[in-house]
């Protein structure tokens, strides 16, 4: 594997609430993404996945840890020096209806990153804009319209065209398909896969939907309360999930096929508040197999036989954790 485009170590993001209280949105995250690789970041609401994506791109300031982008430590780089780097790190947002300036023409929206980062004459830029539009399968007749005349899928194609306009090395995609209809969603994923193939850009694909993440990711990281509880190759994580939260998440996912039976391990309760994080293992309040030790000890990341890393104190005991029923 090539040198990673992005390496994140011990990254934390806390939002102050006053009186020494904090929202602990991201907690000690380590990850790396290589060129041409897609890391899927899965988590429920409140898991801090969107915050993580924004901190990595320095849209939010990191509280702790280190972000190494393209060999450069950008953790505390001044804003003015981050801006030129944005040519190489772009983002696609969840809601394409609100992610585009409603008063700008599609042509100017797609051409904007080119205008900002590439020294091009107007005609050159227009050529590139049209090329980009065609690349994302958007008819060039839309170029002179404004966003309100396009459908959600078309708008997301515009957002993707913007994101790839300067041939970036890293693209963060924050739930790029969750607000789109099913048939449109598949087309967008198809496009992203093609682009990854052509440009060898590294992608961080953030989503709450396991099915979507599975379609596009090489590796997957599962986020719970701002912490990566399990990370590994996509197939391994889906076939033999090691962490009880990953297992519950997978079993709560409803396959769109009545013929596929669902083995249900329904989790009780809801995600605790990120303001007062549980002590010990953060998942112990909802974990069906939590034991006394889980309330005290913070689990370290362990490598399991199938190759992925997981943070659970009960992993050394082996086997599928949720299949075991025993008194705590």
């Amino acid at each position, binding site marked *: 594997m090539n040198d990673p485009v992005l390496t994140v170590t011990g990254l934390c993001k806390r939002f102050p609430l006053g009186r020494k209280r904090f929202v602990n949105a991201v907690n000690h995250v380590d990850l790396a993404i290589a060129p041409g690789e897609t890391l899927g970041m899965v988590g429920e609401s409140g898991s801090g996945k969107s915050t993580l994506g924004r901190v990595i791109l320095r849209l939010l300031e990191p509280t702790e840890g280190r972000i190494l982008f393209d060999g450069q430590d950008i953790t505390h780089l001044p804003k003015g020096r981050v801006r030129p780097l944005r040519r190489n790190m772009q983002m696609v947002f969840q809601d394409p209806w609100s*992610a585009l300036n409603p008063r700008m023409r599609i042509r100017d929206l797609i051409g904007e990153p080119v205008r*900002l980062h590439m020294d091009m004459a107007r005609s050159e830029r227009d050529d590139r804009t049209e090329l980009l539009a065609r690349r994302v399968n958007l008819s060039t007749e839309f170029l002179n319209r404004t966003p309100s005349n396009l459908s959600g899928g078309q708008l997301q194609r515009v957002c993707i065209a913007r994101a790839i306009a300067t041939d970036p090395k890293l693209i963060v995609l924050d739930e790029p398909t969750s607000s789109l209809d099913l048939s449109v969603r598949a087309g967008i994923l198809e496009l992203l896969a093609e682009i990854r193939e052509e440009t060898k850009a590294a992608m961080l694909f953030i989503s709450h939907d396991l099915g979507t993440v599975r379609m596009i990711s090489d590796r997957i990281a599962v986020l719970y309360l701002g912490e990566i509880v399990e990370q590994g190759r996509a197939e391994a994580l889906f076939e033999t999930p090691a962490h009880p939260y990953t297992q519950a998440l997978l079993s709560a996912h409803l396959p769109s096929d009545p013929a596929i039976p669902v083995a249900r391990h329904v989790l009780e309760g809801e995600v605790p508040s990120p303001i007062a994080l549980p002590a010990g293992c953060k998942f112990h309040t909802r974990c069906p197999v939590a034991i006394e030790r889980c309330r005290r000890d913070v689990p370290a990341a362990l490598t399991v036989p199938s190759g992925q890393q997981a943070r659970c104190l009960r992993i050394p005991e082996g086997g599928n954790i949720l299949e075991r029923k025993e008194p705590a």
Partner: protein
Amino acid sequence: MSDATRTEIATDTQQGWSTRARNRFIGVFRLSPTAAIGLLIILFFAVLALFSSWIMPHDPVAAYTDRVLQPPSAEHWFGTDGNGMDVFSRVIYGAKFGFGIAIPAVLLSLVIGVPVGLIAGYRGGLLDEVLMRFFDGLRVFPSIILALAVVAATGQSLLNVILVLGFLDSPVFARVVRAEVLALRSSNFVESAVAAGNPTWRILFVHLLPNAIQGAMAQTAVRAAWAVRISATLAFLGVGIQAPTPEWGAMIRQGAEFMISGQWWVALYPGLALIFLVFGLNLLGDGFRDLMDPRHRSGS
């Protein structure tokens, strides 16, 4: 669905501009009758102001010394004033001052207020506090007294009236724009613009300004009404524009002394003109609000 509506759909392509303009007016009228009526009143005065030289039967500052304080007649529809000038022509000419003061004053308010609102709203923090406190300070004084003091101090000219009004009213636009920017600052497209690598000035003027200006534009008619009213008040109080300039406020001042002696027409007609123009501008201002309300937008 009735057959009548079907035929209307069928005929709405290939029309002349006059039909389209009429339909647009009917459409606006249906959405907001207030706006439509306001617009008509303003258009009426705009025609008076633009074509006054053709409409006026007399020179507005020609003194017919032999016809002082004559009541309305066939020759002088609105009578004559204390100098023997034709009130009808003077009222028509006065529309020029209404627009001539209101438009540049409002433009000046926009030019000062909008950038301040943009920067204060986007930057926030101390800068926002300082700018907004200063502007709040301006708003605390009754504007008419402040305007009076400043115009009296800086010299009595039309230009000074415009500058003072424009400056005094700029906080209104700063406030409106700032509120919009505060709402837009955390919106997705602004974040997306930052993520694309836009410098701050582009965020402010390319991305925020076109989206934050709508509320301010809706205020322009009401603020123009304010400018017309205050400038007339200043003239009435003898500050700024002086008689015998055919400005409505100055004319009312001049006519006020004759009210007691029964020559009501000198003050009444400029007063009515002033009321109607201010009323029209306010109606249009209210109408803007109706038209911008997305619930009134049909077709979705």
